[in-house]
């Protein structure tokens, strides 16, 4: 079911290469900010405003770098946002083609159940908190596993190495402490 690492690695590397060859390096976490911006502007019109030069926002982070995030949130039909939607579509199709994921596994992965039993709501809580910390951290770092670790180290960028060092320094002990079984 899961691809042999030699085939999988070559395929994944080829996708990262194709992205740089045709457009730009892959990144995902910025699009959480873009979706937040879209939601905030829908709830509170005036969150993003158009200026003579482009776009700006009442939020300093959305307005930084000449308002590029504000501009993207105003025009979601841009490369980076559509890329993430298409990524979801690709994963959906791939999952369907391999027969999907069974019911127990859909609620909580096997490794969770091996350590914490059949406790889906506890799992949802940890997934929610985990998501919070992951995206807060990714935005502070300016990128995530895709943008910093994969695209960054592939381009020999110093920041990619700094990020990977931090990520694994926290991830390995956390995983070892939390998941003693499985």
């Amino acid at each position, binding site marked *: 079911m*899961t691809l042999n690492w030699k085939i999988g*690695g070559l395929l*994944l*590397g*080829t996708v*990262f*290469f*194709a992205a*740089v*060859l*045709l*457009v730009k390096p892959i990144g995902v976490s910025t699009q*959480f*900010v873009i979706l937040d911006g879209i939601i905030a502007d829908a709830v509170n019109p005036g969150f993003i405003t158009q200026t003579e030069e482009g776009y700006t926002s009442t*939020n300093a982070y959305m307005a*930084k770098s000449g308002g590029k995030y504000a501009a993207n949130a105003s025009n979601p039909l841009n490369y980076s946002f*559509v890329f993430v*939607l*298409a*990524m*979801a*579509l*690709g*994963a959906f199709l791939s999952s369907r083609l*391999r027969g999907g994921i069974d019911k127990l596994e*859909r609620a909580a*992965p*096997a*490794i*969770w159940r*091996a350590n914490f039993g059949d406790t*889906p709501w506890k799992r949802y809580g940890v*997934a929610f908190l*985990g*998501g919070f*910390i*992951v995206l*807060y*951290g990714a935005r*502070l*770092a*300016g*990128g995530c*596993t895709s943008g910093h670790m994969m695209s960054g180290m*592939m*381009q*020999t*960028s*110093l*920041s*990619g*190495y700094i990020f990977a060092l931090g*990520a694994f320094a*926290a*991830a*390995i002990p*956390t995983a070892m402490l*939390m998941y003693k*079984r*499985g």
Partner: protein
Amino acid sequence: MTSILLAIVIGAAFGAVLDRIGATSPNWIVGMLTLRRLHLMKTILLAIGTGSILMFGGQMIGLVDVGHMSVKAAYIGVFIGGLLLGAGWAASGYCPGTGVAAAAAGRKDALFFIAGGLLGAATYMATYPAWKASGMLDDVAGGKVTLGTVPGSGYDGLTAISGDLLGIALGAVFVLVAFVLPDSLVGGGEGAEVPAE
């Protein structure tokens, strides 16, 4: 329009490959982070190496436009953010890309990850001025730099070594490590082995 088409094609390929290598499954992610099942680590190392060799090789022969490179800045917050992301990544078994892909693949817990992620990103947006004022977002070691110097990239090199050759050499190191890394660095956990789906 071309760019939207490319987004759909490359994005869909990325999502499908993430799913097929096991990256949408916390079982494989956590297995990697506990060092018990390094299959996914080998996949990722080979991918970085492959991407690096193709990209820098392509730039040297003029196939790849060096202007497509996009190097992020180095600052203290990159390390702190990396620590935070690492902790959440291990606890949940998801990172931003694989979380979205996993939800699309049918995992319900990944929807909670995305909801938490949207709130986390929004919280960062609200607290950004404090980080900015702290100086922890200020460039260190030159900010947007590559390890070697890549001609025409517009980015400074940390060293004067040819960035293209260094990129290919480091790519080869990633590939080599992928091959020599064992399937597991520590024994299986107590109790039953979790079948990887």
